[in-house]
């Protein structure tokens, strides 16, 4: 079976791109001739095929986990001197898990989108982009070397740009797409610098102990992950600029921070998180697939893939953990104050990503990946639930005007309830296990620290609070549709008064919801920690990738206390949510009025967007205007400058004929022309002046000779 994967592993990647090609090029004809059905089926089938092969690959790896990864080499993409990159795919437990998530959740979302996008003119375009996204994500996940990963990395950025700006007729969507791509591009800049520093410092070290000969046969590649894994130790003592006595940042930390900058760009952490909330402008399945399950997790996967690099620099890990924890807390606070259903989920994604980074930061890589998997399931379920709510209420997404949907949409409500409980971290559900493991590792692991645990702990409480608020305001209480003031923002589409016509979404949308909810429940059981008697099969499964340093078996009593504390904080969040939003509906308004200023600050996302706009966007605008003017007037337009000066001089003197201004090229040409005009003045036409000039010339030459 291993040879099967080695030969046909690339099919996983090939199918989605085939689907994208068919839908992209022939989509319009198919849609006009045969309607929307075949397009949806083509797209979903291709993803399903790659899902099947992923399952085969997963089973192959799960059955005999050899240490060496399984590589499916397709062709040599780039081979210039020492820069060598092949298009080849790496199958090991980590990538197996990831391709399962990507293709599995992807397939479910494809099914869901068939229903969701019904009637949209750009139907074929949507599925083409979706397939293209799956293709890029699979490349990112299966890439065997950094450059190929970079292609996947930017490929998903492109697809998110296309999908966010899918309904491009509205200006805001297009701008949101732009914002997403440019912020990602900032991250990619960091990623690129990481690759460059890694490449050259590794090259110098290898050249130092003259192992360059190995590269002569042209098979080894400096940037491929297996090679990096073995030779990263060479970089241990090296500092950034390779100058021995310069003691500053070690090159490992520099590389990790650059790569982490790339990760924050992609996974929307603190400095570069601004694009994710705006990305909600895209269709909901897009948000579910890209901005919840797969793309945003790319950063975590990258750190997981390069764990050997990151674990060598405790400084970098500390920063990652701190940023993760901070983002979790920061996003959670904003989440509580948002009224748009999708924005709440967006901020909750940012905060959950913060958890994953926290996990990675404390070197609990398997815990991070475990939370990534469970988060993919319940967050996708939440988004799809929100999607079906939006469809039912004709694209009304402001939760203040919803309520009481429990009666009309039982299945959506049920799955939404399960997912909310999972995310809040209630024990039987998978959310509890993965989040708790991270929190435990945040405290216990040698890179961890109690403050990190405490920040995670508070964020967990807030998560429970805002999720319950969301659940209650949408599904419980009575319907507040008619209280909607005429001009309230958000929610376009016709105003249906009354609530009688809200119907449950069709089967094609609710079935994926149920499956996802089911996974949200059972996913936790494969990672039950030893403390609770489970064998934590998930971290053992990932053992070979992250080095199976089996934790010491002692059951520290502290673990149980922390577990109890996290359950307590979850319940406290839910209870306070219920208290605020169902028992005493007036209470939140009163509290808000008392802490008006802080509420406004939190509601407006700490004005981060406004600051970025002011500093960067209008800043660059000013710079480019100055530069363009500089280019036109100073360098090129010395013409206009001197032309202007000469014109006013000529108006004053009136004797010069200055028609030459339009023909002059630049300052030098200008002076030559004016001296030319001067020359003409000497030619006065008087014969005696000429004769004087003749003798004057001769006298000058004679004097020159006598003097020198």
């Amino acid at each position, binding site marked *: 079976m291993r040879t099967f994967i080695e030969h046909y592993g690339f099919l996983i990647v090939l199918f989605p791109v085939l689907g994208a090609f068919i839908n992209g090029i022939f989509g319009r004809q198919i849609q006009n001739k045969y309607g929307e059905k075949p397009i949806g089926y083509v797209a979903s089938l291709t993803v399903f095929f790659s899902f099947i092969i992923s399952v085969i690959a997963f089973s192959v790896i799960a059955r005999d986990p050899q240490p060496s990864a399984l590589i499916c080499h397709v062709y040599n993409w780039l081979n210039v001197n020492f820069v060598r990159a092949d298009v080849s795919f790496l199958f090991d437990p980590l990538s197996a898990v990831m391709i399962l998530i990507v293709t599995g959740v992807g397939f479910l979302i494809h099914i869901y989108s068939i229903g969701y996008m019904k009637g949209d003119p750009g139907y074929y375009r949507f599925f083409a982009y979706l397939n293209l996204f799956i293709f890029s994500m699979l490349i990112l996940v299966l890439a065997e070397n950094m450059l190929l990963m970079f*292609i996947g990395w*930017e490929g998903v950025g492109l697809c998110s740009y296309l999908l966010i700006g899918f309904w491009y007729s509205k200006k805001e969507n297009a701008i949101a*797409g732009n914002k997403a791509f440019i912020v990602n591009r900032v991250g990619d800049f960091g990623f690129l610098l990481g690759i460059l520093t890694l490449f*050259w410092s590794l090259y110098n070290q290898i050249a130092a102990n003259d192992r360059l000969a190995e590269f002569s046969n042209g098979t080894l590649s400096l940037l491929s992950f297996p090679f990096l894994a073995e030779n990263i130790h060479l970089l241990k003592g090296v500092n950034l600029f390779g100058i021995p006595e310069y003691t500053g940042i070690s090159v490992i930390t520099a590389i990790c921070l650059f790569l982490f900058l790339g990760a924050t760009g992609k996974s929307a952490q603190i400095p570069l998180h601004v694009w994710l909330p705006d990305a909600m402008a895209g269709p909901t399945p897009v948000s579910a697939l890209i901005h919840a399950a797969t793309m945003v997790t790319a950063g975590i996967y990258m750190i997981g893939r390069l764990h050997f690099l990151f674990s060598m620099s405790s400084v970098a890990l500390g920063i990652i953990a701190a940023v993760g924890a901070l983002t979790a807390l920061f996003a959670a606070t904003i989440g509580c104050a948002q009224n748009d259903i999708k924005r709440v989920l967006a901020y909750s994604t940012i905060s959950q990503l913060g958890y994953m980074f926290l996990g990675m930061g404390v070197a609990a890589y398997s815990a991070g990946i475990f939370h990534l998997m469970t988060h993919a399931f319940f967050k996708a379920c939440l988004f799809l639930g929100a999607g079906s709510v939006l469809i039912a209420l004709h694209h009304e997404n402001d939760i203040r005007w919803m309520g009481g949907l429990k009666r009309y949409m039982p299945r959506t409500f049920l799955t939404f309830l399960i997912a909310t409980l999972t995310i809040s971290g209630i024990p039987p559900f998978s959310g509890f296990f993965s989040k708790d493991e991270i929190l435990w590792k945040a405290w216990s692991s040698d890179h961890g620290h109690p403050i990190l645990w405490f920040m995670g702990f508070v964020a967990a409480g807030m998560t429970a609070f805002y999720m319950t608020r969301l659940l209650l305001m949408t599904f419980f209480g009575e319907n507040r549709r008619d209280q909607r003031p005429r001009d309230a923002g958000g929610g376009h589409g016709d105003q249906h008064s009354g609530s009688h016509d809200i119907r449950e979404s069709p089967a094609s949308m609710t079935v994926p919801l149920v499956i996802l909810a089911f996974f949200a429940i059972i996913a936790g059981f494969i990672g039950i920690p030893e403390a609770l008697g489970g064998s934590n099969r998930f971290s053992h499964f990932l053992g070979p990738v992250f080095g199976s340093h089996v934790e010491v078996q002692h059951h520290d009593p502290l673990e149980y206390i922390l577990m109890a504390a996290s359950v307590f904080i979850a319940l406290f969040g839910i209870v306070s949510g219920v208290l605020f939003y169902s028992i005493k509906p007036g209470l939140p308004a009163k509290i808000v009025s008392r802490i008006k200023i802080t509420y406004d600050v939190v509601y407006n996302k700490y004005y981060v967007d406004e600051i970025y706009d002011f500093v960067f966007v209008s800043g660059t605008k000013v710079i480019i205007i100055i530069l363009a003017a500089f280019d036109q007037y100073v360098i*090129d337009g010395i013409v206009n400058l001197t032309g202007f000066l000469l014109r006013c001089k000529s108006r004053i003197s009136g004797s010069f004929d200055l028609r030459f201004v339009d023909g002059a*090229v630049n300052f030098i040409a200008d002076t030559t022309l004016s001296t030319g005009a001067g020359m003409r003045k000497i030619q006065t036409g008087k014969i005696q002046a000429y004769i004087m000039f003749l003798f004057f010339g001769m006298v000058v030459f004679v004097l020159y000779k006598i003097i020198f």
Partner: protein
Amino acid sequence: MSEFIQNHILTLITFIPLIGGFFILFLPKDKHDVIRWSSLVITVVPFLLALILFAGFDRSVYGFTHSNGIQFIEEYTWIRAYNIHYFMGIDGISMPMIFLTALICPLCVLASWGINRGVKGYFFLFLLLETGMMGVFTALDFFLFFVFWEVMLLPMYFLIGIWGGPRKEYAAIKFFLYTLVGSVMMLLVMIYFYLTSDPHTFDMTKLAEINSVFDYRTILWFALFINFAIKIPVFPFHTWLPDAHVEAPTAISVILAGVLLKMGAYGILRINYAVLPDVSYNMSMFMAIFGMINIIYGALTAMAQKDLKKLVAYSSISHMGFVLLGIASFTNEGINGAILQMFNHGVITAMLFLLVGVIYDRAHHREIDGFGGIASVVPNYAFVSFLAFFGALGLPGLNSFISEVLVFIGAFKKYRVITAISASGIIITASYCLWTLQRIFLGKLNEKYKLLPDMNIRETISLLPLALLVVILGVYPHPVLNLMKSTVKYVNNIFLNMNL
């Protein structure tokens, strides 16, 4: 017959357009279509020859100096008294450029179907221009190289001057003066080389072998560098480019950006590096800094432009900055990346200018803000423009990414800070590309262009090969990379064992 073609291929490639041009002069003046079709056929012939050249090119030969073996050599004594030879040959550096020129010229003829004033003169001058360009890339005798270098100037002046936009005279004379200032400096250097080389020779490859004999080396190097910098164009000398581009007709600005800018970089590799290697090595920091300035400055000024064509012109300045950075890196990867970037940029700028031409033929103006949301009205045009603009910003998977990565990797070895700053250029490039796309294609549909016709067959044919190249070279760059690898390896070795 094929044997004749085999050993006269370079002369044929260079002079068929000229002979065709004279043939066109005798066609009847008013039969525009006959003229257009015959000139198309005339430009397709060199393309076929270029394909033969591409097939027959031996990728393993070093080239660059006489002893290493230049390919497809044609050497006849031209003026015995002064040892001037009609010496033509190609190696890894010139082969991609010849292929690019042979590819772009037929597309430009296709794009100039709209010219209807003095059609005969236009196509004659265009074919003369093609001969000049081919000659520059094939000539290996400095005298012949200089003759072709100036022959190329003449038609450009008339093409911009007669068929250009409103300020065409100013742009044309500016172009002519800037380039002439450069080429007169090269004339002095050429004569100095001739007189100080002991068996008085103009042959560039032989000059490369006896390069230690000249004194005043730095002055010579700067004279040559300024000439080629004006052509690239490098920062302080670039002001002719936006004017020339905005005023030139579409097909001419395609040629101008697609091929003429590459001659500067080609010249630096062919003469500066060959004859004055030690000075070039010392000046690498100087060139790298200017490369960086070009990238950042070009990108920022592009962002501020209101006119689409000027924007593309400034983007060319920014992309050529990569070429200069790559050349200045003196690493195998860097120089390979630079030459690949020359090829890729040629393809992408040609596409961008053709697209500008398409929209200009329909809307008769180029104000970026004048359009809006036309993607729904012209889907094919939108798709190709997105492909071109994403190619321009160096999206991985398309061709520019490979050359940009190679340049970055190459340049990072010696100039870490400069490369880091240049790498920030990709952010600025991404922002102005997307901002332009958003203002033209996305957002609310501008009522004026509700019934804008999509691309017709002629335009599609002229854009198709370029679009395919952008994608294919992104996924599989070997066809072009293999051409230059061995020559660049040799060039790199010169500097390695110069133990500086």
